[in-house]
């Protein structure tokens, strides 16, 4: 009962913070001569105009769920994997490379499974290296994961310029992958592929690992109190590497859903923001894997709406970044305000009890 009340309260405050963030960012629109009310109308009507654009919401949501989970999972272990973007790229590279190698040689489903595994292993190993450096050399994982994204971005450019480049050798991108290696579409008339299902399942699996298995329990213990973990036979170093591997694998999986499910090729600069958006979404959801699904959905909607706004009015797409920034800021502030209020009400209760 008490738990439910707390969750409800958390939701109310988060919704309030989100609304506040939206209001403030929309309030900037008149600076560009755009009517905020009109824009909101356009956003809503364009976004929910037809099946296709509604489907786009799910398309946008898919990788966001996964990169957000990557951050949330390590966050539960009190580790900071800021490098989901890089792990996503590694996942993309692995998926596209495996697909291009195997397609038409073996049946489609086999290609898909191989690409899926490759992307997870690739991303996972990238994460694992960061965890390993942290565990073995006490290297600051925040800094290393941050830097790894930049390195990987350049490596990806190099690969796209050389071995992976399209047959025409014109642009920094790969060839299209064969139809047989596409993730099947699950809704007709949209671009929604099986990817969204994979992402939602991933969120549920992550939740299950964290709260139902002893492995997840150990990772959480390590996150809260490393000393107590070590004194309970839980080796923090092992947990650190494990947490980073899983985190990286989830981010890598986003590469698979994006390549085989949506883009059907890899090009330079692909979805270059989903790493940091993922962090924002995870914070919005308080790092709860199930909450991540909904926060990502909300953000996917904003993205589609923002793009529609960019097409129909003078408002730039960057207004979405402003929105997300303010929403995050207010969500974080709401944590503080809630705590303040809680303490105040506790003091009040004590006072009343004292008087009775």
């Amino acid at each position, binding site marked *: 009962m*008490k*738990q439910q009340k707390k969750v409800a309260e958390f939701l109310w405050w988060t919704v309030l913070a989100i609304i506040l963030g939206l209001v403030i960012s929309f309030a900037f629109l008149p600076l560009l001569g755009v009517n905020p009310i009109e824009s909101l109308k356009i956003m809503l009507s364009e976004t929910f105009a037809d099946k296709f654009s509604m489907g786009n919401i799910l398309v946008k949501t898919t990788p966001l769920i996964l990169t957000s989970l990557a951050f949330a999972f390590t966050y539960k272990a009190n580790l900071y994997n800021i490098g989901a973007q890089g792990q996503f790229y590694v996942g993309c590279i692995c998926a596209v490379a495996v697909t291009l190698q195997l397609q038409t040689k073996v049946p489609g489903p086999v290609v898909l499974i191989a690409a899926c595994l490759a992307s997870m292993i690739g991303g996972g190993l990238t994460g694992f290296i960061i965890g390993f450096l942290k565990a073995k050399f006490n290297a600051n994982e925040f800094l290393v994961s941050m830097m790894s994204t930049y390195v990987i971005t350049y490596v990806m450019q190099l690969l796209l310029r050389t071995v992976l480049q399209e047959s025409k050798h014109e642009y920094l991108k790969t060839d299209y992958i064969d139809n047989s290696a596409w993730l099947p579409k699950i809704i007709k008339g949209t671009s929604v592929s099986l990817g969204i299902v994979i992402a939602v399942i991933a969120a549920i699996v992550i939740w299950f690992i964290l709260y*139902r*298995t*002893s*492995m997840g*329990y*150990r990772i*959480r*213990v390590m996150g*809260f*109190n490393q*000393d*107590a973990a*070590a*004194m*309970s*036979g*839980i*080796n923090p170093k092992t947990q650190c590497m494990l947490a980073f591997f899983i985190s990286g694998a989830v981010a890598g999986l986003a590469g698979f859903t994006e390549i085989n499910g949506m883009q059907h090729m890899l090009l330079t600069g692909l979805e270059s923001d989903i790493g940091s958006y993922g962090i924002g979404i995870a914070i919005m959801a308080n790092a709860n894997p199930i909450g991540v699904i909904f926060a990502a959905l909300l953000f996917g909607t904003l993205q589609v709406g923002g793009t529609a706004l960019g097409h129909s009015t003078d408002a730039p797409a960057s207004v979405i970044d402003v929105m997300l920034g303010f929403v995050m800021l207010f969500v974080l502030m709401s944590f503080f305000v809630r705590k303040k209020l809680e*303490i105040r009400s*506790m*003091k009040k209760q*004590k*006072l009343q009890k*004292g008087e009775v």
Partner: protein
Amino acid sequence: MNEPVIELKHITKRFAKVLANDDVSITIHKGEVVALLGENGAGKSTIMKILYGLYHATSGEIWIDGKERKIATPKEAMDAGISMIQQHFSLVPAHTVTENIILGNCKGKLDIKKKEKEIQALAEKYGFQVPAGEYVKNLSVGTQQKVEILKALYLNARVLIMDEPTAVLTPQEIDTLMEFVRRYVEQGNSVVFITHKMREVMAVSDTIVVMRNGSICGTVKKTDTSEAELAHMMIGRELETLEKPGTEDMSNRRVRLAVKDLSIKPKDHTPLLEDINFEIHEGEVLGFAGVSDNGQQELCEAIYGGIPITSGKIELDGEDVTNESVKDRIKLGMGYAAADRYRYGMVAEMSMSENMLLKSSYLNKWVNHGLIRWSALHRYTEDSIKQYAIKAPDHTVTAGSLSGGNQQKMVVAREVDMGDKLIIFDQPTRGLDLGAINYVHKTILGERDKGKAVLLVSTELSEIFALSDRIAVLYKGKIMGIFKNGELTTEKIGLLMAGVQPEKEGAES
């Protein structure tokens, strides 16, 4: 009587969760030692932190030299001549003695060399052996306390508040401190002495203020009272007396834990433990007495597998466990209630159920093929709450929301079940109120009677005497001797704790 220096009038302090002080009034006179006596959590430190500006009173007034003063920060308290030595020293380990003393009391460019000389002179004036240029992290706890006192003297404090100053000292060092206190008040200064130890109160104070549950339950002159009366005021009820451990000879019983030539010698560091040898038999409590930080924690952790050892051997029930990890030692039946339970023994943010699982995440107790059997674990937790009379609404509350005593009961409940063969208790009652202490003591003796081996570490001699079958004294990582309970007087154990080996007669075990 001299004129009052400080008057605290009707101070009430309310935190989010507790009412820490309720209408507390204390008067401190010139040239007087006021002892603030009470159990842990009685609100002694809080009221003094209010006087020192660290906390702010919810209501009430502070009068200094007959005038009302608002004290918002420690700076203002210091300006009024008030200094406080907190229980956990307010020193920066990475800075030198001089830097620590001048912190907050200097302006502009620092002339460290000059200040160092000043402070060295001040130390010599009071007969303190404190190296002014040394880093605080390299000093012993006793010396660190002297640095704290010097800090107050450097500020020309006329009211010195000391929070549990003797907890970290040997009986002999305590005497030196008392000597200083007497000299200091003779010069017309005042001292407030926060403590829960009766002996010190009777030794040094002029006025005794007894606190219980945040309010004052008596202010008496030392000459008008007795230890018995003070104890009664402090606790407010009678406690059931425990049966003293028997004097029976246990050397014929089965050895459960054997430690042989155990040493921990880090590079570039004095040895933490040196040639430790002892055995604990079935159904025996071996108490380790000693001043804190003389290797107790290292000893416990070494036996539990938490830190690597340099040499030596540890056997549990005849099985060599020296190279086993913590995980495996838990499996073999070791329990360990660490002194710093908050850091090593629990996860404050997790629920009570989750905390009960802490040590057994690798065992099949509540885990089945990697899946946690929550319902069984919840039932077990509920049972433990009932059995140990833990004040908690249910198993879902976080461990951090429990009071210190209930947290310790939770840890004890778990470790008692984890330690089938051996239970290590490091300071099991530190910070607990007397009721909880009583309960923990009963549990320890109960487990002993079940045939388990118990290793008890405590800095409270009364606890050691009350529970141990045999007593070992630890000093700078070495065992000064192992004795049967009853062979040692307080004086003799005091000397051993200070590293002095008294005349050999009767000292063999």
